[in-house]
C-alpha cells in the first residue's frame, strides 16, 4: 500500500541501524522514551529494538489510552450497561480492560449488558437514531487523535436534537502526560529513570502540531523528534535524537513532516475547544492525578454528557496488587519484572491494562519479545551444546526470534 510499504523496508532499516550504531559509538548512553503505544507496538513488532546498539535504550511511555484509563472509569461504563440498561458503545480496545469484581465490558455483555463494539463515533450516533426509545452512551477514550471525532458527534447530536445520546468522556492530553513524566521524582530527583529525549507522537501531532512540544525542548532541555508509526520512521527519529544529543542540541524536530505541521489541524482544535474544557485533574493509572490532563464536556453540551445525565461519580479503585502496570507506565519497570506477566496475566486473560491493548508495553512484549531473554538451556538430544548456545545468545539479532 502506498505510503506504508516504502516505510517498512528491512534493508534500509538495517542500514539506518548501522548508522545509529556508528554515531552512538561515543561511550555515552542514550535513554529515549517513545511516548506513544503506536511506537511501542512498531518497535516490538518490527524488531526495531534488535537493530539498535546497546547504547540506545528505549523506554516505553504512557501513551496508550487503554493502559492509563483508571479502573473506576471502566466501572462507570459497566454500571451503565448493567444497571441503567443503556446501549453502551465503545472501541474494541476497551472491551477487555479488567475492572472491579472481576468484570470487564465484555463480561458485562456476557451477563446481558447491551455492549456494542464500534469502529467510529459516528456508529454510536447512528445507533441512537435507530433506537430512539433506548439510551445510547458512547464510552469515549483516547488522546488528541481520537478527540475531534468525539467533538463532532456531540455537535451533530445537538444539531439533530437527539435526546437519547450521551458521551462518557475520558479524553486525555499528551503534553500534560509528558510534563508529568518529566516532573516525576524518578526522572527529576532520583534519576532512577534516566531520560534523554522523546520520540514524539505521530497522529496526535497531526492534530495538535509540533508546537506544544517546544516547551519540553526549551524548559527541560529534552530533544523531541516527532515520528510516524512505521518502523523506518521510528529508526530515523532515533538517529535524529542521537544526533541532537551528540551535538548538545535540544530541539523539536519533525520526521513525520508528510502529515504533521507546526500548528496542526486548526479546524479540529477549534472543534475540541468548542465542545470540551479542561478537567482540574484526572486520574491516570500509574501516574496518579495529573492536573489539567483530561477533557470534560462543556456545560452548554451537558445534555450530551453521560456523567451529567446519569449523575455519575467516579470511585477510586486500586490496581491488582500483583500488577506492575503503574511502574511500567512510568518507565521504572519492564514487563519481565512483573510476576504476573505471562503467567496469570496474558492477552487472553489480562490482569493489568498494559496487557489489554496491543499497544500496551506488556502485550507488545508478550507477542513479540518474551522469549528473547529466556536463557538457552541445552538438553540431552538437542543439537546445540551449552557453549554454542551461549555464544548464539550473545550475537543473536533477536529479530530471528520474532520471525520464528
Amino acid at each position, binding site marked *: *500500500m*502506498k*505510503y*506504508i510499504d516504502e516505510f517498512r523496508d528491512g534493508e*534500509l532499516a*538495517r*542500514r*539506518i541501524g*548501522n*548508522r545509529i550504531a*556508528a554515531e552512538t*559509538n561515543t561511550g555515552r548512553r542514550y535513554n529515549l522514551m517513545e511516548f*506513544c*503505544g*503506536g511506537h511501542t507496538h512498531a518497535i516490538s513488532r518490527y524488531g526495531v529494538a534488535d*537493530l539498535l*546498539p546497546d547504547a540506545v535504550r528505549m523506554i516505553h511511555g504512557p*501513551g496508550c489510552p*487503554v493502559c492509563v484509563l483508571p479502573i473506576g472509569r471502566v466501572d462507570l461504563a459497566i454500571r451503565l450497561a448493567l444497571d441503567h440498561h443503556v446501549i453502551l458503545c465503545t*472501541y474494541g480496545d476497551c472491551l477487555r480492560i479488567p475492572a472491579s469484581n472481576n468484570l470487564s465490558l465484555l463480561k458485562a455483555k456476557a451477563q446481558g449488558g447491551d455492549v456494542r463494539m464500534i*469502529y*467510529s*463515533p*459516528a456508529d454510536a450516533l447512528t445507533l441512537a437514531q435507530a433506537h430512539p426509545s433506548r439510551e445510547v452512551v458512547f464510552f469515549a477514550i*483516547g*488522546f488528541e*487523535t*481520537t478527540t*475531534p*471525532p468525539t467533538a*463532532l458527534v456531540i455537535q451533530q447530536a445537538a444539531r439533530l436534537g437527539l435526546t437519547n445520546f450521551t458521551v462518557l468522556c475520558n479524553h486525555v492530553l499528551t503534553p500534560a502526560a509528558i510534563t508529568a513524566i518529566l516532573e516525576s521524582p524518578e526522572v527529576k530527583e532520583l534519576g532512577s529513570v534516566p531520560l534523554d529525549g522523546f520520540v514524539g507522537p*505521530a*497522529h496526535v501531532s*497531526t492534530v495538535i502540531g509540533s508546537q506544544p512540544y517546544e516547551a519540553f525542548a526549551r524548559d527541560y532541555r529534552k530533544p523531541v523528534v516527532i515520528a510516524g*508509526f512505521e518502523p523506518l520512521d521510528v529508526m*530515523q527519529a532515533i538517529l535524529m535524537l542521537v544526533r541532537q544529543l551528540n551535538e548538545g542540541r535540544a530541539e523539536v524536530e519533525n*520526521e513525520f*513532516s*508528510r*502529515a*504533521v505541521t507546526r500548528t496542526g*489541524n486548526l*479546524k*479540529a482544535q477549534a472543534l475540541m475547544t468548542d465542545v470540551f474544557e479542561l478537567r482540574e485533574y484526572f486520574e491516570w493509572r500509574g501516574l496518579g492525578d495529573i492536573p489539567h490532563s483530561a477533557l470534560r464536556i462543556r456545560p452548554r453540551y451537558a445534555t450530551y454528557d453521560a456523567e451529567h445525565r446519569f449523575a455519575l461519580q467516579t470511585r477510586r479503585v486500586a490496581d491488582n496488587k500483583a500488577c506492575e502496570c503503574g511502574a511500567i507506565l512510568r518507565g521504572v519497570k519492564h514487563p519481565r519484572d512483573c510476576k504476573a506477566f505471562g503467567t496469570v496475566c496474558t492477552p487472553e486473560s489480562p490482569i493489568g491494562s498494559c496487557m489489554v491493548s496491543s*499497544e500496551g508495553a506488556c502485550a507488545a512484549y508478550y507477542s513479540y519479545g518474551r*522469549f528473547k531473554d*529466556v*536463557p*538457552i538451556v541445552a*538438553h540431552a538430544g538437542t543439537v*546445540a551444546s551449552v557453549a554454542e*548456545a551461549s555464544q*548464539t545468545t550473545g550475537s*543473536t*539479532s*533477536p529479530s*530471528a*526470534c520474532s*520471525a*520464528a
Partner: protein
Amino acid sequence: MCLALPVLVVQLLDDDRAVVDLGGIRKEISLALLDGVAVGEYVILHVGYALSRLDPAEAQRTLALFAQVGIAAVPQSAAAASTSTSASEASATQTAHSAAALNASAP
C-alpha cells in the same frame, strides 16, 4: 488506539463525506475535520475521519533522507558489531531460539 492509515480519496460525496481506497478496499469516510480535500489526495484516516492531508512532496523528502542515511559510508567496525551475522549463523540461532522457546513454555 491512535492508529491511522494513509488512504486515497477517490470520490467526494455530500455532507463532507468521501469514498476512499486503501489497497483496493473502498470505504465511506468523513472529511468534516478538513477543508477543501480533492479527489486524488491522500489523507490520514482515523476512526472514520480524515485527520490531516498527506503531503506527497514531504513523503518523498523523508524517503530520500532514509536513502541518504543508507548510502552514507558506515564504518566497518560498527556494521560488524550490530548485524553482520551470516545467513547460516542466523538460521542456527533461530533454531536454538525456537528450541529455547519450546523449553520455556513446556510445563
